[in-house]
C-alpha cells in the first residue's frame, strides 16, 4: 500500500488562508486522523488529497508519484462522504460494482468482487436493496465497500460517522478499523469527534486555523499535548493560570504541585492543565495538608460507571475550578455544597507557557 507525503500545502479563499504551508507524512497502511474544530481546514486538506480542490501551492505525493495535477478520477483513491452518497437509482450491489464497471472490468468479475466486499462489510443479504431501503449505518457500509471496490491506493473518510446515531457510530467505528487493518490501505479520516479520532487512529493530526499543531499517537496526544490548543481541545480538564514559583505553580496565592513546573523559568506566566481522572478527593477534616487544595463541590454529573464532580477552588477568583472523575459509588458521598480536599500526583499536570 501507498505512502503519502503532503509538502507545504497552502490554500486561501478570498484572501483568507485556510491551510498554511502544511506538511504531513503517512506511512504505508496507517490510519491517520485529521482532528480539529469546524473550519480548521481538515476537510479542505482531505479534498486536496482527493483532487477535488487544487492547492495554491505544495504537492501531494502518493507512492512516490506527484499526483497534485491529476484529476480525482485518475488518483485511485476511495472516498466515503459525510452525507450518504450512494447512487439512489442503483442497488447496493450495483453501487459497489460501479467503480469496476466504469473501469471496464468484466461483469462477472465486477459482481463477484462486489459480493466479496458486501460480505466484508456484513451486508451479504442486502445486495439487492436500494439505498432508501437501507439504514444510515448500512448505507455507509455500502459506501465503504464501494470505495474499496476500486482497489484504492488510499482510503479517504470524510466524517463518515457524523450522521449516525451514537450506537451505530460506535459499532461502525470498530468495523471500519477492522476492515482498514484487514485491507492494510493507507487511510485518512477527518473528524471533529475526538473520541472517534483517539479510538480509531494510528496517529492523530490535530489542526487549528489551517495549521498542524501536533501529529502523534492517540496516547501521546492525550497525555503529552505539545500545544496549549491541543491540551484544551483533547479531553476534558481544568486550565488554571499561574506563575512559576519555587518549583510549583502559584495560582492566586495557592502553590499547586506540578513536576513540569521545573521546566520553566522562575516567574514565568504559565497555564496549569489538570485532567479530571488525575484528581483525587477526600472529605475535609479540618486542616489542608501540603499538596492538597481546599474546594467545594459545585455539582455532580452521572455518566454511568463514572461521575464527574465539578469543584470550586476556595479563596480563588471566580472561574478557578477543577473537575474530578470518580467511580460513581465513591462519588455518592460528595454532595453539592460539601467541602473537600483535592489532590493529584505531582507528575500528572501539564504546564505550558501562557499564550
Amino acid at each position: 500500500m501507498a505512502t503519502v507525503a503532503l509538502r507545504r500545502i497552502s490554500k486561501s479563499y478570498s484572501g483568507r488562508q485556510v491551510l498554511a504551508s502544511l506538511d504531513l507524512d503517512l506511512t504505508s497502511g496507517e490510519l491517520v486522523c485529521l482532528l480539529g474544530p469546524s473550519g480548521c481546514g481538515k476537510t479542505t486538506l482531505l479534498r486536496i488529497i482527493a483532487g477535488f480542490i487544487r492547492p495554491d501551492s505544495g504537492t501531494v505525493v502518493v507512492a512516490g508519484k506527484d499526483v497534485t495535477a491529476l484529476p480525482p478520477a485518475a488518483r485511485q483513491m476511495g472516498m466515503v462522504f459525510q452525507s450518504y452518497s450512494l447512487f439512489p437509482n442503483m442497488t447496493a450491489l450495483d453501487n459497489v460494482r460501479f467503480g469496476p464497471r466504469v473501469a471496464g472490468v468484466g461483469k462477472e468479475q465486477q459482481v463477484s468482487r462486489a459480493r466479496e466486499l458486501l460480505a466484508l462489510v456484513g451486508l451479504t443479504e442486502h445486495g439487492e436493496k436500494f439505498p432508501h431501503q437501507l439504514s444510515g449505518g448500512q448505507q455507509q457500509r455500502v459506501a465503504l465497500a464501494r470505495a474499496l471496490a476500486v482497489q484504492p491506493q488510499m482510503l479517504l473518510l470524510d466524517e463518515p460517522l457524523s450522521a449516525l446515531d451514537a450506537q451505530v457510530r460506535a459499532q461502525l467505528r470498530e468495523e471500519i478499523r477492522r476492515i482498514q487493518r484487514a485491507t492494510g490501505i493507507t487511510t485518512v479520516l477527518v473528524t471533529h469527534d475526538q473520541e472517534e479520532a483517539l479510538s480509531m487512529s494510528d496517529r492523530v493530526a490535530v489542526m487549528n486555523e489551517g495549521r498542524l499543531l501536533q501529529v502523534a499517537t492517540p496516547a501521546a496526544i492525550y497525555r503529552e499535548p505539545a500545544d496549549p490548543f491541543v491540551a484544551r481541545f483533547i479531553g476534558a480538564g481544568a486550565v488554571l493560570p499561574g506563575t512559576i514559583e519555587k518549583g510549583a505553580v502559584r495560582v492566586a496565592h495557592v502553590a499547586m504541585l506540578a513536576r513540569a513546573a521545573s521546566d520553566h523559568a522562575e516567574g514565568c506566566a504559565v497555564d496549569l492543565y489538570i485532567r479530571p481522572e488525575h484528581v483525587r478527593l477526600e472529605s475535609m477534616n479540618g486542616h489542608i495538608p501540603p499538596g492538597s487544595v481546599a474546594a467545594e463541590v459545585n455539582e455532580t454529573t452521572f455518566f454511568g460507571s463514572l461521575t464527574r464532580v465539578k469543584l470550586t477552588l476556595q479563596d480563588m477568583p471566580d472561574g478557578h475550578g477543577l473537575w474530578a472523575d470518580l467511580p460513581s459509588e465513591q462519588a455518592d458521598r460528595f454532595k453539592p455544597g460539601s467541602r473537600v480536599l483535592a489532590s493529584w500526583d505531582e507528575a500528572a499536570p501539564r504546564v505550558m507557557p501562557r499564550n
Partner: protein
Amino acid sequence: MNRMGIIGWLVLPLAAIYFIVPLVMTLAFSLWQGGSSYGFASYRVLMGRPQLPSSLLLSTELAGATALMLVVLLLPAMIFMNLYAPKLRPLFEFIAALPFVVPAIALVAGLTALFTGPEWLLGSPFYLVIPYFFLALPYAYRSLDVGLGALDLTTLTEAGQSLGATMGQIIRFVVLPNLRSALVGSLLLTLAVVIGEFTFANVLLFRTFAVFMNQIGQHEATEAAALVMVSFLITWGAMLGVLVVGRGCSPVGGGH
C-alpha cells in the same frame, strides 16, 4: 370542516363550472349534425383529412426535436451551473423567464432577423425548433431544476469521480436515471407547448397541428370543435404521462 373552509367549497364548484361547461358545450357542438341529430360525423370527416396525420406528425417531430435540443443543450448547462457555477443561477432564472415576457410575434421577428442560415434549415419546418426551444425553455427549466434540486448532485458527482468515472459516465449512469421523472415531465410539457403553438408556425407558413386547427375552424365549425377535443385528448394524455411516470419513480435525494 377541513382546511379548505367555506370560501374554498364555494369557489371550487364555480371554477369547475367555468372549466367544464365550455368543454362539454364544445364536445356537444362537435357531435352536432344539424337539427336535433348528434353523432360522430365531424370526427369521421376529420379523420378522413390527410392533413390531420401529416400536421400531427410534423408537430410531434418538432416536439421531439425541441425536446432533444433541450436535453442536449439545457441539461448539461444546468448540471454545470449546479456543480461549478451556482452564482450563475439568477442569470439562468432570468433567461428561463424571458420567453414569458417577450411577445411571440416579437420573438418571430427577432429570430428571423438573427438566424439567417444555414440554408438547409431556413426552408425546413425544423427551423421552428429554434423558437420552440425558447418557448419550451421556462417549463423544461423549471421541471429540471426541481429534479436537480432533489439530488445531492455535488456529492454524487464527487463520489462518481472518486470511483474513476468520467463526467460523461456520471451523467449517463447516475444523473440521468435519477432525473427520469423530471426529464419526462419536461419532455411532455415541451410536447404540449409545441403541439399547441400557433403564432410562429403561422407566420413562418408551416402547417403544424395548431395551424391546421385554425384553418379548419375558419371553414368547418363542428370539425374545428372535434379537433379541439382531439387536441385536448393529446394534451391530457401528455399530462397523464407526467403523473404516471412521476408516481412510478422511486425516492431520490441520496437515499436518506
